[in-house]
């Protein structure tokens, strides 16, 4: 293999580039990123960076003096993949020919229809998003967060600490019920109420009010919530449009094997755009977690370099964390697989909990709120059990 192109220059792309070099790949390495920035860390964008506690230099993922001997094509968007010529087409009309390809194009924030061109309306996914939102938050006022998921909750928590008046609107009856289940979703999202943040559940958003600048969020039940700033946190969709017609099978992202291989030889996929086969579950899952973007590229790169001749190891259960209102929230496994959940330690009212999710008596997931030590023990146990 003489040229490998990594499409995507965020955590998953960087981890893939590092894995390539670590696993002995010595050829030409091209990293293509559509943003103009070097790889940066996203978790602080909704927390310390948004609050102004850390700056852009602190977000860098590369270490001082790190040299991957890669060609960095930044501000270059991939628009197509030509399988016969093995070439990645770029928006500026150029192309990169490569015999190995790592797809790491991530996911993009979903927008609210009709919010285009309305000042004060934000999504939060990229560094540029975070800069714009940080500047708006610094002016203060009333913030309405649409979506009570993790990004929305972290923004609400940060803005609340900055002194803004915050309302969170969630269409589902309980926020976080998807990732955490009904009961624990309720306990974690109660953090909003503890801090005087208004939480409106079970009501959809009809639209936004305002001419050139947003001034309200209009709810489906007829209510109008005054707003100076609106953050739309309603999830993300995988950035795989550029692969349409390429022969790479797409099914809620790039469909991959348990080793990251796609339907095309010499092409693997990693990170938020990739839907990996989960041998435990017996089906494909697209998991948008930082840890997956960091850990899985090693396996995908091994597959790429070995021409598909490696046995994939069983990955650890997916793990993510969140910090909200000073509480450390940690979760591993899959809540949807569980038929019961029990609090093993701590008390929900104290927002200090270690809860274990089980299916037929076997642990399938674990949640911690301010319980890092116990959480680690259970997380290890979960990995050993599966």
């Amino acid at each position, binding site marked *: 293999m003489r040229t490998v192109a990594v499409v995507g220059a965020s955590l998953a792309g960087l*981890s893939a580039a590092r894995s390539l070099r670590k696993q002995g790949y010595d050829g030409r390495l091209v990293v293509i990123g559509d943003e103009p920035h070097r790889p940066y860390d996203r978790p602080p964008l909704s927390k310390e960076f948004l609050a102004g506690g850390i700056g852009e230099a602190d977000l860098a*993922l590369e*270490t001082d003096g790190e040299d991957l001997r890669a060609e960095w094509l930044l501000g270059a968007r991939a628009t197509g993949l030509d399988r016969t010529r093995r070439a990645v087409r770029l928006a500026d009309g150029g192309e990169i020919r490569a015999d190995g390809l790592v797809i790491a194009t991530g996911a993009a924030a979903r927008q609210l229809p009709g919010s285009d061109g309305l000042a004060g309306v934000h999504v939060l996914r990229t560094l540029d998003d975070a800069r714009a939102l940080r500047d708006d938050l610094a002016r203060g006022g009333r913030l309405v967060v649409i979506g009570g998921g993790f990004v929305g909750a972290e923004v609400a928590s940060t803005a609340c600490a900055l002194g803004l008046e915050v309302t969170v609107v969630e269409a589902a009856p309980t926020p976080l019920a998807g990732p955490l289940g009904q009961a624990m979703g309720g306990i974690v999202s109660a953090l909003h109420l503890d801090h005087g943040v208004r939480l409106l559940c079970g009501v959809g958003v009809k639209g936004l009010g305002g001419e050139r600048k947003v001034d309200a969020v209009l709810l489906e039940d007829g209510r109008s919530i005054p707003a100076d700033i609106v953050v739309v946190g309603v999830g993300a969709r995988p950035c795989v449009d550029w692969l349409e017609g390429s022969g790479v099978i797409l099914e809620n992202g790039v469909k991959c094997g348990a080793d990251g291989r796609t339907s095309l030889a010499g092409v693997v996929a990693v990170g938020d755009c990739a839907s990996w086969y989960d041998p435990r579950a017996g089906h494909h899952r697209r998991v948008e977690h930082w*840890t997956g973007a960091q850990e899985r590229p090693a396996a995908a790169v091994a597959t790429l370099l070995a021409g598909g001749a490696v046995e994939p190891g069983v990955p650890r259960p997916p793990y993510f964390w969140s910090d909200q209102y000073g509480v*450390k929230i940690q979760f591993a496994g899959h809540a949807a697989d569980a038929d019961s959940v029990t609090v093993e330690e701590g008390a929900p009212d104290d927002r200090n909990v270690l809860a274990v999710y089980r299916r037929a008596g076997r642990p399938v997931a674990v949640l911690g709120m301010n319980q*890092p*030590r116990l*959480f680690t023990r259970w997380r290890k146990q979960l990995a050993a059990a599966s």
Partner: protein
Amino acid sequence: MMIPACRLADLPRGEALRLDIDPPVSVFHTDDGELFAIDDTCTHQDASLADGWLEGCEVECPLHASKFDLRTGAVDAPPAKLPVRTHDVLIEDGMIYVRVSTDAPNLPPCVAARLAGGPA
């Protein structure tokens, strides 16, 4: 500076003991029976590595995904970027002692700021 940690018999394999000095140091007893001491605080954010996931000669930070090599202090992956200090471990008469390194520690920004302001 030599600090008595605990009796060897009181630190089972697979366990870690945190010494509440400033900055805190932890002693790890690996599953293979080796003993190591490193700075306890992850260089990325305030987290106790003694609470982390010990596997072989590596400990993973309990919050995020960076792993530190107990032998060298080196870190393998983000979000942490700097190594932790390593310290000598001695055993005498069944007691574990730690000789704390005189190198400057790599503490995360919030902890460094707190220590610079004097002991809490």
